[in-house]
């Protein structure tokens, strides 16, 4: 697979690798994928309860180079955004930024699912109801 420079950079030195306390009230955890599929992403966000700004984001991924780069990039993009702004992150933006080949687009979809999963988890823990 001929990967882009940006992708290789994220793969070689991934950003924000780690674990937040999933039991903390202001941490949202998104765990998507399955070992049988060869892709598991865990994305976590630490949210400022007042401003709803994502203060910190961490990830760990079991997957190929594209999966790791996609989730690494996602954590970079999440930091500093509000959770509503974060919901607008679209997988195609990840595809463009990393120049993902067509056969790897599903890795970016998984990253988007992980973002949404983390935000949904935070909202559930904090009693935030989705607008009708």
């Amino acid at each position, binding site marked *: *697979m001929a990967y882009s420079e940006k992708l290789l950079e994220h*793969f070689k030195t*991934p950003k924000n*690798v780690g*674990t937040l306390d999933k039991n903390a009230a202001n941490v949202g955890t998104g*765990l*998507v*994928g*399955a*070992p*049988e*599929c*060869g*892709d*598991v*992403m*865990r994305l976590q966000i630490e949210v400022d309860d007042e401003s709803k700004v994502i203060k910190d984001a961490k990830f*760990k*991924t*079991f*997957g*190929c*180079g*594209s*999966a*790791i780069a996609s989730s690494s990039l996602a954590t970079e993009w999440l930091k500093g955004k509000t959770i509503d702004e974060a919901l607008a992150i679209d997988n195609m933006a990840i595809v463009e930024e990393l120049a993902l080949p067509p*056969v790897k687009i*599903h890795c970016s*979809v*998984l990253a988007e*699912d992980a973002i949404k*999963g983390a935000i949904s988890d935070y909202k559930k823990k904090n009693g935030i109801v989705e607008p009708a």
Partner: protein
Amino acid sequence: MNQSNLIYLDNNSTTPTDPRVVEAMLPYFTQHFGNAASRNHPFGWAAESGVDKAREQVADLINADTREIIFTSGATEGDNLALKGVFEMYSRKGNHIITLKTEHKAVLDSCKKIEKMGGEVTYLDVNPDGLVDLSKLEAAMTDKTILVSIMWANNETGVIQPMKAIGDICAKKGVLFMSDATQAVGKIPVDPKATGVHLMAFTGHKMYGPKGVGALYVNRKNPRVKVTSQMDGGGHERGMRSGTLNVPAIVGFGKAAELAKAEMEVEAKRLAGLRDKLESALMANMEECYINGNTDHRMPHVTNISFKHVEGEGLMMTFNQNIGVSSGSACTSASLEPSYVLIALGLGDDLAHSSIRFSLGRFTTEAEIDATIEQVTKGVNHMRDLSPIWEMYKEGVDLDAVVWAEH
């Protein structure tokens, strides 16, 4: 043979052409360039002579008669010719073929085509170590069975099937026995007559010969086997495979066979030593590593290891700037399916995604193995630091009990 610090451990995919083979081939491009079928002038005679010698060298390697060697463009063609050729030739005798789920695609896809042509094919399961169950094989045979197709050594795991035992069953039942022996010929002693194999496909580029040339062994006595040609036009190769012979490649193939016969025993011992060093070091350096396939009946130069909780393509990317290997991961295949061979061994998708195949070769050095041990160990540890399922495993979470949010 090594360009700077590049390490090649993917010899099951192809091998570098031995410089001695290249040297043998060169005169046949510009000097003895004639068509081997031109019987009426020195240009043709010189080419024919080169082919005759190569045919002897190839036959000699597998203890066959020169009249039993049909030159092809490779093992894929040989498999096609054997399977479809037997199916067509013996159609009055029956239409049932038995093979294994772990065969190469050249066999499996030919079988699929044969099914479309009205044939019946039984795809047998293998045991978890990759070996065929002989009683299941015998039980699958009917009075319509005309052919059993079982590969000598598996390309992914290196597992060697009990060829003599299979041959005995086929002889008893009067069924032809065909083998894709691509991964075995030239590397371990392969004697079709001694094992009861009637047809055997193999290729040059897996034994330090050039790409684009191979052979199909077709037994000519007790029983006399024939195949309906799949390539028509001129009647070359005893009417079984038409087409102008690729003389330089055939000459190279012959030379490669000669070298293999002479060097096989010593080389196999040396490679087994290096393979064992690589394998035991990796198993000792890290926990949760699993060797795939029977280790007693295995090619000396192959090891297929699953590194649990680490995905294969990602792992390869930690060292593939200078080490070449293969993986059974879905992420490395164009179809996004994990290795069907490893799945047939009952591995489970997650271990299939985590597998790496190391296949050593004639030009592999001990220094390269040492460097590989170091880089792969580093790579696995790095990927485990990134892996959420490794973290969960270390925390004592039962991963089989987790309900995954699949997409």
